[in-house]
């Protein structure tokens, strides 16, 4: 066999060996990819199975909440009127009146009144009962929650003050007079004869 033929055969063998090495390596990597995709498919199947009941449950929750929102909005408008209702909403949640009531689209057109001028603090307290009052922390069959001994003070605090008396620890007015503890003008001529202007 001529030398050129030997070189040709050796070259072809080298090519085949390279093909074997690279193709086997590629097959190993593709097997790893297949195994990884199997894991992915399994996990995605779990996700699908777990999320399947979410939609009806969330739809039911939303339906209940929608009914509650509609009923509360209707009650608020019925009891307070549209204008005052929007003022009340804006007083409790500043800026919320701009969004309006969901079931009353005309409420977006209303300029909410300053609720402090319309309602007493007691009404605002009543309005806050749903989210801040301690009404739900005790059994309704138990003793009353309000302070019986200082009931009048609590009731008085519900209404606006005629005179601004708070904060409670305001500095007292300064004591003035000749016997005051601090003399604000230390003058030596006090109590002495008045000075007279000399005549020219």
């Amino acid at each position, binding site marked *: 066999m*001529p030398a*050129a*033929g030997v*070189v*040709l055969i050796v*070259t*072809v063998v*080298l*090519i085949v060996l*390279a*093909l074997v090495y*690279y*193709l086997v*390596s*590629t097959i190993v*990597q*593709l097997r*790893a*990819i297949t195994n*990884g*995709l199997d*894991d*992915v498919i399994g*996990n*995605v199947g*779990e*996700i699908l199975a*777990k*999320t399947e*009941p*979410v939609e009806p*449950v*969330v739809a*039911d*929750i939303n339906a*209940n*909440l929608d*009914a*509650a929102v509609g*009923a*509360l909005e209707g*009650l608020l*408008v*019925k*009891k*307070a*009127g549209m204008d*005052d209702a929007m003022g009340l909403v804006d007083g409790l949640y500043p800026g919320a009146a701009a969004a309006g009531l969901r079931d009353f689209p005309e409420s977006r057109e209303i300029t909410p009144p300053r609720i402090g001028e319309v309602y007493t603090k007691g009404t605002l307290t009543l309005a806050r009962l*749903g989210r801040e009052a301690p009404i739900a922390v005790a059994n309704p069959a138990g003793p009353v929650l309000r302070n019986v001994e200082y009931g009048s003070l609590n009731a008085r605090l519900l209404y606006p003050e005629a005179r601004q008396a708070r904060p409670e620890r305001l500095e007292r007015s300064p004591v003035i007079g000749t016997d005051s503890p601090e003399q604000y003008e230390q003058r030596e001529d006090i109590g002495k004869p008045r000075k007279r202007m000399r005549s020219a």
Partner: protein
Amino acid sequence: MTLWWIGDIVLLVVVVPIVLYLLNDVLSASKSIVPSVRKIADVTAAGSRDLDAVPLLLTTQDQVRQTVAGVANYGGSLDVIIDDA
């Protein structure tokens, strides 16, 4: 004979490098896919674990029903004790 040698040289200088280059590219591409698939599998596993709390939605649903019922009773009482505007 000369043509044979020319064929050998072409095979060694042109064909073999091209074959090696292409095979190497295929192997590199397949190797680069494996970590991505592994990451995707990890992420989907984590997502599946996160959804283990989904059954708690049933508790939320029940509590929302009870809350709405309480609000309805509360609103009914308010409707009675407060005058209309």
